[in-house]
């Protein structure tokens, strides 16, 4: 089997997968009577037409990539973290709590401290499923989902109760939200007239950090070994449960930081709907980015584009924004199926035999 055939085969499979995914999406768009071509064009190009659009996409890249980096650490260590949504919510709560408690600290202390508080909150919420999985063999798929719902309730409890904006009480409009947090917490918006903030650089720095952690330290090596084959890692003397827990703590901490940055950079107060599905989209971004920081950052841009573009489809082509969730689901299903095809050498061999035997037959016929 030539190397050229092998790359050609892989590219062919990936193209086939993209076509399949887009066809599935098209079928649903046809079912709701939308213009398929126009919808895809709107989602993919409309946001990029002006400065605000591009910065809004970058704005969504920040939480998406940070959450996805955390999910990658867990995934590489053999644990699927679908609890990022809840970890993010708890991270927002702890960030807010710290900012409410110490509003007068100078920026250069308050911002790192608040983000660390967010990381701590998320880490606690990630530790629980990690511990349950490592020590009690509780499936992380179920425990993280349940913790999402618990976190959502805690979140509304705090926003309606202890953290409620005093102005809301006197005005009595009853919107569950905290007060405007200290201005010292604000992340600078570095392009005038847009919302893009310095969280973008934090996200890029964290991507680099995860690359170093996973591929350049012995910790990362052990985590990846535990994820690749828990049994082999144990024979190799790696304390697998310990690294499972550590990876979940890191994963949760990243989701928590993402939540804190959303508060400090975008909303400036804790309100409802901050997480808005980033926890689940992060899974898609992580998978789409090949579970590697170098892939995740562009993947986060791509999905930021999709998410922002999907907001526009309602107005421009009458396609509900829920469509983005459908596309994300299709993309996950296609990626996991495609990975299996690519990892199957027998299939490749069979395809090659079929392809080349028919080619050879064609050649002999020509000669004859």
């Amino acid at each position, binding site marked *: 089997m030539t190397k050229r055939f092998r790359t050609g085969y892989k590219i062919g499979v990936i193209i086939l997968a993209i076509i399949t995914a887009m066809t599935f999406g098209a079928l649903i768009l046809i079912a709701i009577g939308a213009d398929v071509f126009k919808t895809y064009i709107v989602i993919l190009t409309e946001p990029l037409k002006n400065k605000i659009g591009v910065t809004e996409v970058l704005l969504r890249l920040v939480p998406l990539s940070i959450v996805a980096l955390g999910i990658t650490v867990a995934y590489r260590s053999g644990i699927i973290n679908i609890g990022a949504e809840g970890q993010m919510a708890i991270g927002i709560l702890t960030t807010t709590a710290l900012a409410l408690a110490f509003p007068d600290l100078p920026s250069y202390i308050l911002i790192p401290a608040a983000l660390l508080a967010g990381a701590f909150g998320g880490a606690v919420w990630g530790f629980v499923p990690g511990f349950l999985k490592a020590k009690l063999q509780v499936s992380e798929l*179920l425990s993280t989902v349940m913790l999402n719902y618990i976190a959502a309730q805690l979140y509304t409890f705090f926003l*309606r109760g202890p953290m409620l904006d005093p102005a809301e009480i006197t005005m009595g409009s009853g919107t569950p939200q905290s007060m405007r947090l200290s201005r010292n917490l604000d992340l600078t918006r570095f392009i005038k007239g847009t919302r893009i903030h310095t969280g973008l650089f934090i996200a890029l720095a964290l991507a680099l950090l995860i690359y170093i952690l996973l591929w350049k330290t012995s910790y990362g090596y052990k985590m990846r070994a535990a994820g690749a084959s828990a049994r082999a890692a144990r024979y190799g003397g790696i304390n697998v449960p310990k690294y499972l827990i550590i990876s979940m703590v890191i994963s949760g901490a990243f989701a928590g930081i993402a939540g804190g940055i959303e508060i400090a950079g975008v909303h400036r107060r804790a309100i409802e709907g901050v997480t808005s599905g980033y926890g689940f989209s992060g899974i898609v971004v992580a998978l789409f980015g090949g579970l590697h920081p170098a892939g995740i950052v562009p993947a986060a841009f791509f999905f930021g584009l999709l998410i922002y573009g999907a907001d526009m489809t309602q107005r421009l082509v009458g396609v509900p924004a829920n469509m983005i969730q*459908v596309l994300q*689901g299709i993309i996950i299903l296609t990626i996991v*199926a495609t990975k299996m095809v690519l990892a199957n050498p027998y299939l490749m061999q069979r395809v090659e035999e079929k392809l080349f035997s028919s080619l050879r037959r064609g050649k002999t016929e020509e000669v004859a």
Partner: protein
Amino acid sequence: MEFIVNIVSLGIPFSVALLIASLGEMFNQRAGVFNLGCEGLMAVGAFLGLLVPYLVGGGAEVPGIYNYIGIAVAMGGGALLGLLFGVVVVSFRAPQGIAGIGMQMFGVGLAGTLFRHFVGGTQSVIGIPKAPIPFLADIPILGELLFQHNPLVYVAFILVPVAWYVLFKTPWGLRVRAVGTNPRAADSIGIQVNRVRFQALMVGGAMAALAGAYLSLCQVKMFSDDIIAGRGFIAVALVYFGHWHPVKIMGGALLFTLAQSLQLAIQGLGIDFPYEFLVMLPYVLVIIVLSVSRNSQKMGPTALGKPFNREMRT
């Protein structure tokens, strides 16, 4: 006394969606497939079930038959999605946990998208009314507890012995258990492992959709994006809790919903307690139950979550 009767007669209808979905998931897992997409299948079922009576009557009362056509359509759609999931995890042998999340997002998103296009806004339907069973409903206390419910409630509880019979007393049930326990042995005596898994996935998908349709037609009588509210995930957890056995799963479903109706009753009494903590209760309970019953996981189907590949050793 009246308080307790209230709680129980409230709790029984609440348990139905969980019970039906869990029984469906049980068939999936008994055949060795872990379908975390249950939540998505339920959402699609909830939408399709409501769609038919809505298209016919536009929210006004329609002849009862259309509600049941809606349920049939929902079950068909659920079976189709089960088939789709089968293509991904059985034919392509993709890892089931992550594929299930994809299925969940696909299903929930699909239901929301189609709902906005075909129905839109919030639209309530009359749905299926309660059907007290003649004579039995008049028994004091017991009648109120057990025989004054929605027809689907009776169906759900009849499904428990039916599921038991199908799983343990029919050749198909034996095949399902065989491919979930030792697919290689099943294969060696001529059982088509993947075909049985597909069948189980379609049965499970249809039942998940039925559970969703129960929610939209009988319990909530409308559709919203978060109508399932994690019931699909709890249903998956209940299968573990119920040790893959229909009767124990029923016990689990009842226990969980009693906790939920207790929460509503406490709210009704006007006791000053943040209700968010009461809403949390079932989810906390799932985690606690999974943690203390960890040995039960060893009792599950041994090939659970493992794709079958005839050409591979081990």
